[in-house]
């Protein structure tokens, strides 16, 4: 009876206790690592804040237009604050990972390994989205200004089209990088983009037939006989 009790009840408890005893130093070291991480992250944040203030990063960002981009992107903090918060977060994440590692639990170690392997994809996707956003703003604005200066009515539609097209392309690339619905996203993008281009070509072809004819006639005419200028005002 005593043997049965020992085997069924006492031994597992002894094992558990033994394991807890073995685990406790890991837990303790993990807590210490986390504590040190918090202090270092805070110190780095404060130090960086001072450094960025000395170099007047906020004004530099304002001058190069980065503040404007961030505000348009919904970030209300100043660029220096954002940098400090970002670095604080990164340092903290590094120490959290170190703390988890020091627990020496296989499942967690596997998860961390997978996370680390996936991390570059997240980083590249974020960079892609930021670049896409900046490029979409730049090119859509350039198209809008050129269209307005050409006197094209409803230039706003061109602006939106360019902006949306670049953002859709960027998001597709980012999702592909993250490996989310890889094939589905590319197929969906190809269908939507191809369809849109086909629709626009068709619309231009049907609606702009007369305009194209007129344009070509004018060009051929202009080459053979110079037309009388409509506006004789000289700007320069």
């Amino acid at each position: 009876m005593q043997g049965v009790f020992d085997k069924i009840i006492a031994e597992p408890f002894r094992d558990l206790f033994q394991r807890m005893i073995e685990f406790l130093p890991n837990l303790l070291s993990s807590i210490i690592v986390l504590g040190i991480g918090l202090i270092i992250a805070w110190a780095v944040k404060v130090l960086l804040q001072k450094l960025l203030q000395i170099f007047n990063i906020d004004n530099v960002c304002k001058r190069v237009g980065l503040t404007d981009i961030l505000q348009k992107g919904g970030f209300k903090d100043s660029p220096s604050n954002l940098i400090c918060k970002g670095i604080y977060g990164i340092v903290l994440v590094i120490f959290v990972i170190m703390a988890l590692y020091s627990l020496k639990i296989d499942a967690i170690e596997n998860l961390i390994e997978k996370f680390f392997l996936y991390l570059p994809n997240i980083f590249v996707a974020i960079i892609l989205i930021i670049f896409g956003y900046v490029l979409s703003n730049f090119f859509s604005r350039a198209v809008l200004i050129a269209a307005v200066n050409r006197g094209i009515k409803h230039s706003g539609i061109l602006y939106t089209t360019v902006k949306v097209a670049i953002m859709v392309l960027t998001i597709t690339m980012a999702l592909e990088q993250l490996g989310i619905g890889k094939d589905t996203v590319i197929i969906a993008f190809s269908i939507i983009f191809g369809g849109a281009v086909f629709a626009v070509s068709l619309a231009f072809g049907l609606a702009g037939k007369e305009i194209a004819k007129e344009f070509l006639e004018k060009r051929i005419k202009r080459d053979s006989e110079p037309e009388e200028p409509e506006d004789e005002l000289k700007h320069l």
Partner: protein
Amino acid sequence: MAESKVKETNKSVVLRKEVQEKIAELKEADILVGIPSYNNAKTIGHVVKAVQAGLTKYFPDYKSVLVNSDGGSVDGTMDVVKNTTLDLDSILLQHRVGSFHKIVTPYQGIPGKGSAFRTIFEIAKELNVKACAVVDADLRSITPEWIELLVRPVLDAGYDYVAPYYHRHKYDGTITNTIVYPITRALYGKRIRQPIGGDFGFSGKLAAFYLTKDVWDTDVARYGIDIWMTTTAVANGFKICQAFLGAKIHDPKDPGADLSSMLHQVVNSVVNLMEEYEHVWKNVNGSEAVPTFGFVYTVGLEPIKVNLDGMLDKFRLGVKELGRMYESILPGELMWFLGSLAEKDKEDFHFPDNVWAEIIYSFAVACHKKLMSTGHIIKSLTPLYLGKVASFVIETWESTADEVEQRLEQLCLAFEKEKTYLIDRWFEAEETEKGDNENKGP
């Protein structure tokens, strides 16, 4: 290798060996007339003749050099310059043949009028000339008198810079009339009527000073040389005057170039110079006339075609479509005004001068603060500029040339009056920065 450096400094331009030999042969000269060119074979012969006749008629006792600085013409421009000879007997009843020489050379550097001028300045410096003049190669209305008017004030009256003053149609040069002249006058306090005229006279001292400036790899070398020369001379305290040259008739300047590109080139140059000389213009109040040489006259104006409806349509389209962009450049009250102006009919359309001055200053400040790409900021000004030109045409349709000049005088005074608006906004950012730094302490 047919090239070697004239000077070892990085600021000197590479001159060809034959040019150096010619300089060594001439040793020095009194007057240099430069002609920058690029595919001007049709017109440059006339310009060379006018220059030679002007130098022979008015400066027979001086040693003169004509320099053609060419940008790689493929139509034989340089051959035309080399082969053009003048039958002085058919032009002048009595004349003495002075010392006249030609230097024909392709220029080095970025393609553009500025690089051509750099070569001319460099030759002027090497020859230690007293006075220089530069004239465009596409001029059809140049006469020998232009050379006297551009050179004489430098040689005999001690002026360093002679700006041109042309007789032009009231609707010619609308960018100059509505932007460049008023803003240059308000900023630097000198009433130079044609700051981007293209034909100038200047002293050898000023040519050497231009060479000390490190701008030859910038837009100045491409297209901004005219306003740069004028502003540099004014801002650095050189002695300035104007010469009335009569009508300016030339080949159309790049008919393919669109308005927004022209506007971008000119306004961008003005804003870049504002950055460089902010310490000068922030202390200037009002303006003063500069001495004008030559016999000023006006003639009747031929009516020309102006597409007013087209300009107004583009203005309205710009206000509607670029409104969100303007919101980050212009203050609220100007936005409100533009919105209400866009709804007005042609008959009631009036763009006040003070509003226009504030708009130009706001765009300059937006470039200074780099609110977005400078190209975008300036090109988005095009619809508003067309609105101002349309308003100007409506107001002056029946006016004579003198009345139009008076109207432009009002516009310039508005720019001078609104200058405090520019100073407040331009230096706003720096004041805030300074305040922040002071609050932070050491």
